[in-house]
């Protein structure tokens, strides 16, 4: 007697709107990167999720909140999580060894922390440009 095949339901979680996990559009596939405004640019940060580094950064700058970092979110570049660096006008890819949480708010906080560290680094691409073109 032939065994009946069980139709197992696939247990793949669909994560709506979660960056790095959402299905990209045909246009995004073609150009190989996120089209910035396709995710919720108006997603407001959850201040309970602030990392110790970000708390220290806000205190150091003398601001009352995340300030410009409110507009920073975790996107993706070629299926890998990435954050857009407006100073370099390019995507900064998150290394594979950094394990990212599923929650978008937590991911955004990590994106903000990594971006600040990258921008303030002497290895940032703008440093070479500044050395070459700084006028005063």
């Amino acid at each position: 007697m032939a065994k009946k095949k069980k139709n197992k339901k696939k247990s793949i979680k669909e994560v709506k709107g979660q960056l790095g996990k959402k299905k990209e559009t045909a246009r995004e596939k073609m150009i190989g990167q996120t089209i910035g405004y396709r995710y919720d640019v108006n997603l407001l940060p959850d201040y309970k999720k602030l990392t110790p580094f970000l708390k220290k950064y806000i205190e150091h700058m003398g601001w009352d909140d995340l300030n410009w970092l409110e507009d920073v979110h975790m996107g993706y570049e070629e299926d890998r999580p990435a954050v857009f660096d407006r100073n370099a006008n390019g995507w900064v890819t998150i290394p594979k060894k950094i394990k990212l949480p599923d929650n978008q708010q937590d991911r955004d906080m990590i994106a903000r922390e990594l971006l600040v560290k990258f921008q303030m680094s002497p290895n940032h691409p703008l440093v070479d440009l500044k050395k070459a073109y700084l006028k005063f």
Partner: protein
Amino acid sequence: MANLKTAEKKTKAQSMGMHTEVLTGKTQQKFFNPDEAENFFYWGTHDVDFNKRTELDVKDLDCKQANEKIDILMSEGYGTIVIKNPQGKHSLGVGILNKLNLIFEGSLGYFGVGAIDGPIVTVKGRVGWSCAENMMAGKVVIEKNAGSCFGAAIRGGDLICKGSVGARTGIDQKGGSIIVGGDAGAFTGFMMQRGRIVILGDVGINLGDSMYDGTIYVGGKIGSFGSDAVESPITKSDIDWLTRKLKVAEIGSNVDLSKMTKVVAGKKLWNYDALEPTERKGAI
């Protein structure tokens, strides 16, 4: 004939010889190094101390001399600088890329505190056109009124005017928050792409004209809506954000936030993806 056959395969733009580049997408992808040291200021800028305070009288200085003097003071570690007698000079306090507490005891002319990235600025008078244009981060507080193009093309930070502002406030805004305690002129939020504008008073005609994204909150009357600007219901997260931001701005504590009008893009202008590059040029 052969040329015609080839031309058929090409897009309209390519056959016109106006589009030869290959759209490969990725431009400047960088990889983050997690071993970066903690550092809170850009390379080439200054790590200053807020408790180290000084005054600078700019009465007899032109804007270039005054800005150079501010830079020298920052390089000496001064974190609080009080500018005396700005006398409406143009382009004062521009291009400051580190943390700083900058206080102007008077009014500024055109393009004051433009392209700043980090400082907290207080202007105890008025400001002219395009105050804080291209601001990247920080907080700017104007105690009195501001001219046209307030916060033109700002990308981040909090820009606050406790009085009223002129026309085209937040034109081409790409991020950050603009908060106005009084009224705003025509074309507020013109072509804004991202970020938030809060007007506690009335606004003029064509509010949010051709806005691509972002949010505008208005407490008073609206002259008229611009092309593709539509009203949207105000949510709890909007009220939470407004409560927090108005506290930061130290204005509007008595405003009933639930009665504010929220304006967003109707997204009917979101049709650039379907256009050829040459057509896109014309559309913009």
